[in-house]
């Protein structure tokens, strides 16, 4: 029994219980839950109308009643941050969901049929990788008009090959397992084997990757909004606020950029940490 085998026996005992997220893991989960709550009830929580303009209060700092002060059009920053959470979450959520579903399907097809299907799909992944994602976002924006939906679709086309390539390797290993051969001999249909058996076994890996991807999605969508291709003013969105706050930052009033920037960073960190912990917990490297 080699050292490695002892280690696996020891580790398998430790794997299952959720309590093994660790303090950091729980903290990350807490941050995510708070953000989700704000994303869901942003409007209700916001003390003022996030779009009410009063340019007399342009870039005014925190005053009683307005803990975070105002943005360049005199709109209450705290309300915009709260309402902005939604688009800063719905976007990445849709992006991760779409690209995970597409990536998983392609990976499973490639892993199941192997042979030339696998080769063409992999070549397809290469081509999609070579295509600069940002160019796609801009072209789609000019095609259908900039907006969150267009940005999400553009990034989905960029994220799917990344996830597809990642999942393909794991899917190949799973479809090679002997229980798949046994099921074929038992007369199960390809669909049943892949959907009812191979996919559930891939779920821990898929979920862990999706969560890590969520962090990157928040940043990339924020980036596109920064370039004016994602969420369109006047809707509140953290990526847009970081961009909109830049002029004020130059004038020495960094509140909007840094507040929205901190939220973006906090969300990305929380998802990154949770993704790592779950992956480690499920013994996925």
């Amino acid at each position, binding site marked *: 029994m080699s050292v490695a085998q002892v280690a696996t026996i020891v580790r398998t005992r430790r794997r299952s219980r959720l309590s093994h997220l660790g303090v950091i893991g729980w903290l990350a989960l807490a941050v995510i839950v708070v953000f989700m709550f704000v994303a869901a009830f942003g409007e209700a929580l916001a003390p003022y109308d996030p779009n009410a303009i009063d340019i007399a209060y342009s870039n005014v700092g925190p005053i009683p009643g307005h803990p975070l002060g105002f943005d360049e059009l005199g709109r209450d920053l705290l309300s915009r941050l709260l309402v902005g959470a939604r688009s800063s979450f719905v976007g990445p959520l849709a992006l991760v969901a779409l690209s995970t579903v597409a990536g998983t399907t392609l990976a499973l097809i490639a892993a199941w049929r192997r042979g030339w299907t696998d080769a063409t799909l992999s070549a397809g992944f290469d081509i999609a990788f*070579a295509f600069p*994602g*940002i160019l*796609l976002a*801009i*072209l789609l924006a000019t095609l259908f008009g900039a907006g969150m939906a267009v940005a999400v679709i553009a990034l989905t086309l960029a994220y799917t090959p990344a996830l597809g390539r990642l999942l393909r390797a794991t899917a190949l290993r799973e479809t090679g397992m002997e229980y798949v051969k046994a099921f074929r001999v038992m007369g199960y249909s390809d669909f049943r084997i892949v959907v009812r058996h191979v996919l559930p076994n891939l779920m821990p890996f898929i979920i862990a990757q999706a969560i890590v991807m969520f962090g990157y999605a928040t940043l990339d969508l924020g980036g596109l909004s*920064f370039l004016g291709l994602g969420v369109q003013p006047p809707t509140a969105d953290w990526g847009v606020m970081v961009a909109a706050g830049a002029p004020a*930052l130059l004038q020495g009033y960094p509140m909007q950029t840094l507040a929205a920037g901190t939220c973006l*960073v906090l969300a990305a960190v929380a998802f990154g940490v949770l993704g790592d912990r779950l992956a480690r917990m499920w013994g996925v490297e």
Partner: protein
Amino acid sequence: MKSFLGRRMLLGLVTILATTFLVHIALYLAPGDPIDVLTAGKPTTPERLEALRAQYHLDDPFLTRYFSWLGGVFQGDLGQSVAFNADVSLLMGPRVPTTLLLVGSAFIMIMVFGLSLGIVAALRGGVIDTATMATATLLSAIPAFVSSFVLINVFALQLGWFPAIGIGDGTPIDTARHLVLPSVALALGAGAFVARTTRASVRTELGRDHVATATVRGIPRRLVTSRHVLRNGLLPILSIAGLLLAGLIVGTAFVEQAFAIEGLGKLLVTAARQQDLAVVQAVTLILVVAFVLLNILVDILYWYLDPRVRSEEA
């Protein structure tokens, strides 16, 4: 080796053609007319519009425009830029070396810091491991456009250690000084990703049996680490180099904008916004060719370094 290289080259060529064709379709479908950019802001007469459309052959049918563009590429003529009213090759001239320098220095920074952080975290473990990984996660979470602001304002304006914008007057030292901050901004995200992947890969290698046998054969720890653990552990990092480059190219758009560097990323964004087909095609062509070449290089290196690949291929 020949057939392996041949296959990779063929795939590379297909990738280049497919990508440029996709760009062509996308731009062709985009509504609006590049001509508006030329005449922006000043009332124009119909004749003037006509003359301009002819000059930039905006009325040729779809396929002929693609193949004439492709034909041109082979003779070094990348066509006319509508937005800049100049030869595209003239526009690309100064920008290609700038972006290559920027992406190159960022790539080196990513590899140097990413790898060393990852290795130290994997070998040391414990506090250092958690600390490095925590900072890596934090750094990778900061978007390029935010880190650019912070770097300029702190290191260039307040501390004055580095120049704030541009790439200097071309002399090596001056260019280097100018490239430090933008490279750091570009390298942050990817560097953290490399650190995390290196750590995972080196740790799995540490657990392998052949490391135990090397120890039991009395090979000193230092040599076991360098010859067996690191050499095998760092191979997979090579394979994600392709992925990294794609990410860097996107990143340059933000960094070049923030540091006022005239590079391909910035040019791509402005050109795409103004539907300046010739420029978008040219930039995409260069990016895709660079991407394909790097992938082939990585495959050759992998072939050379990892015999297992060789036996599978044969």
